[in-house]
């Protein structure tokens, strides 16, 4: 058992439900007690979904505990088939059903005997995987299921499309800015002359999955969902895939360059010419994206050397770290992710870009880290936004866990060239707002706040401040005040000084050249 207040990634069944309810005309039935269908609320609230979420529960209650689900699950499946005629039903186990250890596969087999819909049991273990891993796994399972089925029925279609085409794998409901990213990707591919074969899971019909192998290659924009499906397709159908996320100027350029490879593999044979995207990249970088110019402009010069902390899922945290460091010259003191399962790769990605890498699922660890570093801005999840609020540091939200604010009605992609513009705004606004607030302080705007120590965890009980020294920090602009206070204390501690006077403060300043 462990004491937990907050979690970054949800339980496994959430991942399965995200995939299942993203496909069109698929219904998920959870084997769960009353109240576990909270996913419906989230989807309906966050995405402001107009349709009923295609998820119901086959309720586990006392009777089920006593005698097993027996016919209940089977009846619920056939009832749903009759009511809504979905193409497929995904039976979703929860933590409860994994302890009950009922033979759900048996129910699925029985139900599919006389059902017009396909019935699948999601193959995820609640205690071993989290939401993200489960979504990856379920997507692969569904793709595998329908491709194998198509092969058995002899209707699989492996002939490549006439013109270059790609599948986008991993766009799902309620993903962080997924809808906007998807639109941006479509535009990008349109401009590259690559058509979109299929986008899964979002909005795709299962019976169309048999056409997946017709694409020339696959694209996995987010590392959290789709890698397993893509590598299955590579192994079974020889489809190359690109897992670089086109977030930021550099990544996007790299992404496009990588597309050239699979396209040119067939281009000369099928199109009679090779493609070269260099000019496109150059034009986009110079004229469509403002980010490259922005990083040259005076605004961005002011950001140079400022400190930031980054935390989020592996995809976003790594990309944002790269943008901050390589594109904007901002110093990333610490970069981290809660995707423990992807830790190795994350380390590779941010190596050399930041002072410290933190991989944890514990939000208090992040909170303490931020309090210790005191960056000028945080780029994190909703949790880091609240940490920032408490210690008065601005925060830009760059990753799930999501909040209703992360589902803007306006167009806000993170991917592609428009994405680079959005990210510039996000980064600049976070820092800029902080500066505005501080310039008020510099000119003595509202100095009624008292000394802000900005600490969540630092233990300072053994050091006293002399009254006149206590006044001194108030003369210092707010944005460095906490840091100077703390550094002075560290200096005092190191030199065994128990009371901080004005002299000690200036000694500390000289020593540490604050």
């Amino acid at each position: 058992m462990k004491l937990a207040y907050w979690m970054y990634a949800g339980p496994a069944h959430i991942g399965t439900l995200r995939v299942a309810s993203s496909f069109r005309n698929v219904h998920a039935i959870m084997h769960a007690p009353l109240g576990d269908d909270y996913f419906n609320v989230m989807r309906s609230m966050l995405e402001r979904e107009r349709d009923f979420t295609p998820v119901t529960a086959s309720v586990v209650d006392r009777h089920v505990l006593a005698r097993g689900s027996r016919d209940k699950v089977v009846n619920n499946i056939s009832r749903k088939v009759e009511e809504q005629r979905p193409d497929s039903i995904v039976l979703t186990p929860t933590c409860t059903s994994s302890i009950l250890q009922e033979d759900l596969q048996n129910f699925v087999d029985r139900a599919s005997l006389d059902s017009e819909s396909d019935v699948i049991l999601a193959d995820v273990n609640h205690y071993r995987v989290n939401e993200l891993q489960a979504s990856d796994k379920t997507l692969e399972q569904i793709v595998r299921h329908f491709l194998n089925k198509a092969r058995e029925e002899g209707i699989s279609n492996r002939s490549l499309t006439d013109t270059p085409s790609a599948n986008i794998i991993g766009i799902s409901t309620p993903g962080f800015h997924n809808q906007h990213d998807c639109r941006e990707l479509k535009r990008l591919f349109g401009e590259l002359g690559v058509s979109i074969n299929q986008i899964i899971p979002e909005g795709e019909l299962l019976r169309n999955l048999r056409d997946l192998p017709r694409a020339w290659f696959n694209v996995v924009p987010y590392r959290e969902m789709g890698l397993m499906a893509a590598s299955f397709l590579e192994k079974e159908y020889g489809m190359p895939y690109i897992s670089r996320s086109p977030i930021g100027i550099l990544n996007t350029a790299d992404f496009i360059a990588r597309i050239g490879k699979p396209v040119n593999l067939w281009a000369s044979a099928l199109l009679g010419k090779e493609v070269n995207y260099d000019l496109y990249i150059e034009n986009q970088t110079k004229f469509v994206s403002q980010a490259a110019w922005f990083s040259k402009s005076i605004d961005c010069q002011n950001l140079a050397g400022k400190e930031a902390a980054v935390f989020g899922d592996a995809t976003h945290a790594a990309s944002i770290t790269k943008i901050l460091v390589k594109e904007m010259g901002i110093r990333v003191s610490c970069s981290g992710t809660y995707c423990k399962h992807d830790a190795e790769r994350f380390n590779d990605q941010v190596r050399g870009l930041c002072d410290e890498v933190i991989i944890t699922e514990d939000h208090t660890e992040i909170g303490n880290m931020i309090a210790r570093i005191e960056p000028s801005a945080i780029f994190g999840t909703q949790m880091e936004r609240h940490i920032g609020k408490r210690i008065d540091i601005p925060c830009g939200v760059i990753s799930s866990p999501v909040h209703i604010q992360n589902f803007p009605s306006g167009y806000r992609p993170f991917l592609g060239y428009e994405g680079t513009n959005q990210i510039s705004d996000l980064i600049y606004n976070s820092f800029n707002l902080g500066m505005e607030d501080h310039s008020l302080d510099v000119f003595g705007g509202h100095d009624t706040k008292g000394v802000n120590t900005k600490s969540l965890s630092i233990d300072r009980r053994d050091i006293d401040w002399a009254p006149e020294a206590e006044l001194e920090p108030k003369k210092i602009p707010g944005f460095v005040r906490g840091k100077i206070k703390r550094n002075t204390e560290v200096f005092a501690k190191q030199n065994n000084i128990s009371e901080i006077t004005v002299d000690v403060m200036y000694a500390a300043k000289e020593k540490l050249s604050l």
Partner: protein
Amino acid sequence: MKTPETLAFECETGNYHTFCPISCVARLYQKIEDSFFLVVGTKTCGYFLQNALGVMIFAEPRYAMAESEEGDISAKLNDQEELEKICLQIKNDRNPSVIIWIGTCTTEIIKMDLEGIAPILEKRIRIPIVVARANGLDYAFTQGEDTVLAAMAHRCPEYTRYRTSEGRSDESEHFRITISSKNKSIFQKEQLTKSNLVLFGSLPSSVALQLNSESKRQSVPVSGWLPSQRYNELPSLGEGIYVCGINPFLSRTATTLMRRRKCQLIGAPFPIGPDGTRAWIEKICLIFNIKPEGLEERETQIWKNIKDYIQLIEGKSVFFMGDNLLEISIARFLIRCGMVVYEIGIPYMDRRYQAAELLFLQQTCEKMKMPSPRIVEKPDNYSQVQRMHELKPHLAITGMAHANPLEARNIDTKWSVEFTFAQIHGSSNARDILELVTRPLRRKGGFTPNPRSLSKQTLKN
């Protein structure tokens, strides 16, 4: 009391959406200031809590998960040792006066003996540990609070009338006779000022105060509340104490108070809406043999004050999908406001505990010449949506899972959970209920409430 015969009860499949009962920690940790709630469950429980409670989670709440891992499920780890570690950590960080363990589906299924472990750990770490099994296998949403209060009822101090040990049985005998006799002797008045009325149900303290004064006005002062603001202020219970519920979902607590603590239950309608509040106080007065004063004028005054809202909803129809057990009382109030109620969905219907409320509902229907609504226990949301497509109600009171889809289908909705968090008890909060009910209808435009409703001021009498 008998259940009214003419109300039609039905029971469906129980495939409906509601909150998990562990959500009760949200209200209760705020109510009981020195408590700490530990939910012994899985990631699923934690995910629900952190999403359902929204911003509250960021405010260093006094609740947490003891998250079971694979080792706990397969009994590789010792439950008692694991819980001890966690509780010691909580003691060090927060030093609460009581730790409340919330048992979940997982602890039920793996049969973790929370009730057995608690007394052992209680001694070792020297903090009272109360165990409540608020799980989704047995209960829905607000019933979670019921399980916690029922568990707390056992921790209330014993009530002794004169705080002497001898001759107690005689005195309580005497006491009962005095109460049931019709004459209002001075002796009895004295008893009442000593007061033996305990109300149960968790309310924000301001609302609790309003009900206190409502009751005091009729010279029946409230002697205590279950739960109290602090754990060590729990009211004394025992023979001679009268208890009255203020929420319709507290049937287990009521049973515990009657059977285990030998209290006398006052079965009354619940103080929701001016009609409910008046009926509630009248029933209490009846039990204490007091002639209520000025209730009619007061009720009339309140109805007058909410006239602008009533005009909006009069003749409109409403459909309760059912998820929090407040449905009967709110439906009764809305019928009295002139609305037509098509269906009252409700997770669980305790016809004995709610008997007075059900009778009152029926009387209200007769009085307002409205057809009595069908009451659907354990509703089936899918069938309900089909029925709604036929009936086309003006308003559906429903959970968030259905609200946006129904709005997209041109059925105005009100999110039901708001009723459990808003202040809806007592006469003066009648306006707040209507504020909620009319919001979707007001949004349609054209309605500007009179100036007093724009401000949040409470009604003065």
